[in-house]
């Protein structure tokens, strides 16, 4: 739930001197490396899920319902006898895919609109910015919730709804960059050579506007995972029996008085996953865009 304007105020842990490559700076950033390690861990578990766990994430076994954590079920079992650890690592597939595709929706719609808005200015800019204003007038989670309420539940509609909620951030960010870039010498030079606007936008403006977009996309992955899990928790997101972290917590909620552990582990998974993207995003910001360091 972070906003780029707030998050860019960050005191760097060290001042980078000498050769400043992106990886060179990133790999000296311990929190960012921790984030990367957590993410790789999730990816490995998600891909290799059938090799990691002997259990099925969907098949119910009521004789094994609501078991406490033990050696055979490290995180215990849920109300339908399914192994919670198994559902969490299969759930990582769902959450990561939803996050990636939703951010892709935000990028595909938001970046071109922002580029065009900042590059052309005038009425194009006014039109696009009013559109962004209107979208920003809705609380992002509520925009996603209202869209799902109208479109209907299901994984595809969750991706669309959550994706739409992150569009305005990318519009604003890219527009800001394009405004600066269009006044640069190399853009003037390209214009003098009679290059078309489309060519200039794709070859000059886009590449130079990319660094903050990459940072924001990483942070947005965390935000979209949080939003989608919130929809799942309310019961309007990904539906049972698909293992999804938010909907697992929505079910666990009914058992917090008798089996509080059921509600613990899926939450840890969400925190770790979102934290990983936030740490990587902060690290990328420091590495890619030293200008954003305010101090």
């Amino acid at each position, binding site marked *: *739930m*972070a*906003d780029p*304007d*707030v*998050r860019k*105020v*960050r*005191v760097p842990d060290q001042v980078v001197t000498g050769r400043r490559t992106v990886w060179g700076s990133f790999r000296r950033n311990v*929190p960012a490396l921790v984030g990367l390690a957590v993410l790789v861990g999730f990816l490995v578990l998600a891909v290799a899920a059938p090799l990691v766990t002997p259990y099925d994430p969907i098949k119910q076994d009521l004789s094994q319902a609501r078991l406490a954590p033990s050696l055979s079920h490290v995180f215990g079992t849920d109300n339908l006898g399914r192994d919670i650890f198994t559902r969490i690592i299969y759930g990582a597939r769902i959450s990561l895919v939803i996050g990636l595709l939703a951010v892709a929706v935000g990028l595909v719609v938001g970046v071109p609109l922002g580029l065009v808005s900042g590059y052309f200015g005038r009425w194009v800019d006014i039109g696009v910015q*009013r*559109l962004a*204003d*209107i979208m*920003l*007038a*809705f*609380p*992002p*989670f*509520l925009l996603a*919730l*209202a*869209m799902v*309420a*109208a*479109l*209907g539940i299901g994984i595809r509609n969750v991706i669309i709804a959550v994706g739409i909620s992150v569009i305005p951030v990318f519009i604003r960010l890219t527009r800001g960059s394009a405004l600066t870039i269009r006044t640069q010498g190399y853009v003037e030079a390209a214009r003098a050579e009679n290059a078309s606007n489309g060519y200039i936008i794709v070859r000059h403006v886009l590449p130079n506007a990319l660094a903050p977009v990459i940072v924001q996309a990483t942070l947005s992955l*965390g935000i979209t995972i*949080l939003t989608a*899990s*919130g929809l799942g*928790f*309310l*019961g*309007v997101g990904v539906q049972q029996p698909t293992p999804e972290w*938010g909907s697992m*917590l929505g079910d*666990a*909620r009914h058992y*917090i*008085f008798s089996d*509080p552990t059921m*509600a*613990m582990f*899926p*939450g840890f998974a*969400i*925190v770790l996953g*979102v*934290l990983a993207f*936030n*740490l990587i995003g*902060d690290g990328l910001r420091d590495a890619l865009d030293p200008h954003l360091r*305010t*101090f």
Partner: protein
Amino acid sequence: MSGFVQYLVRRLGVSLVSLLGVALIVVLLTHLLPGDPARTIAGVLADQEEVDRLRRQLALDRPILVQYLHFVAGLLHGDLGESARTGQPVSSEIFARLPATLALAVTGTLVGSVLGVVAGVVAAVRKTTTTDHVVSTLSVTGVSVPIYWLGLMLVIVFAVELGWLPAAGAEQPTSIILPSVALGFFIMALVARMTRSTMLEVLGEDYVRTARAKGASERRVVYKHALRNAFIPVLTVIGLQFGNLLGGAVLTETVFAWPGIGRLLVDSIFARDFPMVQGIVLVYAVLLVVVNLMVDLMYTWIDPRISFHG
């Protein structure tokens, strides 16, 4: 002064355009629904006559522009339609529930801001100590924790295990404590982060050095000169995060069975009470636009250096 009036008029204009756009999106939402909008709005229990009556009444058989004008005209009279579930005016149900949501939003913001400023100041004063690292870690974690999960954990610890506070509802005065903490946590994280960096900047300023040179005690320097500047980061975070706070409040109200419009929204989605969903979404957007307007105006009031001609 005329500069301020100009700014005010322009800023109000932008807000008004946003609200008209919001109303358009709310009207268009009906057309995303599968099937006949009139049937959906009337609800599953309505008969064909009722559906036809609604279709004419809401101009659903007319072009979207007509529907839109019709909707806005209703809004100007405070008319948000009737609930498909209860038949009562949407506006009266919303206004009955609104105070609970506002109370939660205000206490959540207060809890988050106060704790955040304290944590940020302590971290800045004890820069690079363990305290500082703990605050920094907490503030990165704070924005990664799902509000509803934090709420569940608070219920487990303070209601189920310790039995200190009520787990749900709004019957007792102490009922608001857990929801406010759950909702305010991410605000605290962001405010702590910004306060820390603002304080580090301010503590290096000339006037602070002068105060120190004059022999002012460290405590006096921190509180008198530096803390006064902490209000701006708080205001910035509130301005940027009020939307997320309202979204978080929907989840918090669901976890704690808090009787606000967020829970009403979720219930209405499940009951397919679409006029109610439209009305609530609209009210949230109005709240957000109004708060952003207030925050922008407060900036110019607090910090005269901020120009009106931006």
